[in-house]
């Protein structure tokens, strides 16, 4: 199925969880935050939150600014 990750389409397997997605992208679980369809997914829920077809996923981290 296709989901949107940080504005770009991405093919993932059915049943993919947030944790699976982060692992596939080579991202650490700490120092980042994930929102699915505009709702924050707390770190503790990454392994049990699966994404569905067309889900809009945002993955953010701290950068220099302000």
């Amino acid at each position, binding site marked *: 199925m296709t989901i949107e990750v940080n504005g770009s389409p991405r093919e993932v397997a059915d049943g993919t969880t947030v944790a699976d997605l982060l692992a596939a992208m*080579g991202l650490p679980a700490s120092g980042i935050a994930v929102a699915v369809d505009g709702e*924050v997914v707390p770190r503790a829920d990454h392994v049990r939150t699966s994404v569905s077809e067309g889900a809009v996923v945002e993955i953010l981290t*701290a950068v*220099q600014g302000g």
Partner: protein
Amino acid sequence: MDDPFVIADREYTSRLITGTGGAANLAVLERALVASGTELTTVSLRRVDAAGGSGVLEALRRLKIDPLPNTAGCRTAAEAVLTARLAREALGTNWIKLEVVADDKTLLPDPMELLDAATTLVDDGFVVLPYTNDDPVLALRLEEAGCAAVMPLGSPIGTGLGIRNPHNIELIVARAGVPVILDAVPMPASDAALAMELGCSAVLLATAVTRAADPEKMATAMRSAVVAGRLARQAGRIPQRFWAQASSPPR
């Protein structure tokens, strides 16, 4: 601690809050942060890219500087609230520098959206530090909403125009029950001292240091200016007079 800077449940020695934006690279930024003596520094939240993180969080951790995430770039209360919640998740802090700007031309805060977002975030358990206009009424409303400080601007972000309305800053200070932190002042060190002389509790600046020809030296200058201004405020300036008054005894 002598004359600590108390904000919410924390005590700081330094009254200089810095930003991390505008530095040529992380090494330059780190040297400037150390020279500034800052204990609280803003960071922004952006999408991760293929290159991974920028390393700024690791640098702050190593330097024992608390991160203060901001909501830079947000235009609506809803955007700012989501960004704050993501920042809390990513950084493990409930402190947020709340920025909700109205348009690109001025980058001035949108008062309605700002107050709306501040109210929501305070209710959600955040320590909210709003970047606000130099408007004494709005500053009071933000304090009433439960904000831990108010951060009025000296002039629009990036203009370098210093403190355009010192009287408004004094009015905000006169009524505030929370720290007043002068923000958005890419300015000479003399204006950082002026902000403190006007009664501000702290100064927040970034590009004045990071984009200076010698960021490390400018950071040292700003640190000294803030200390000088604070001492001058506490010492009590002499009253202004219309006519001259000799300081030597008559002959």
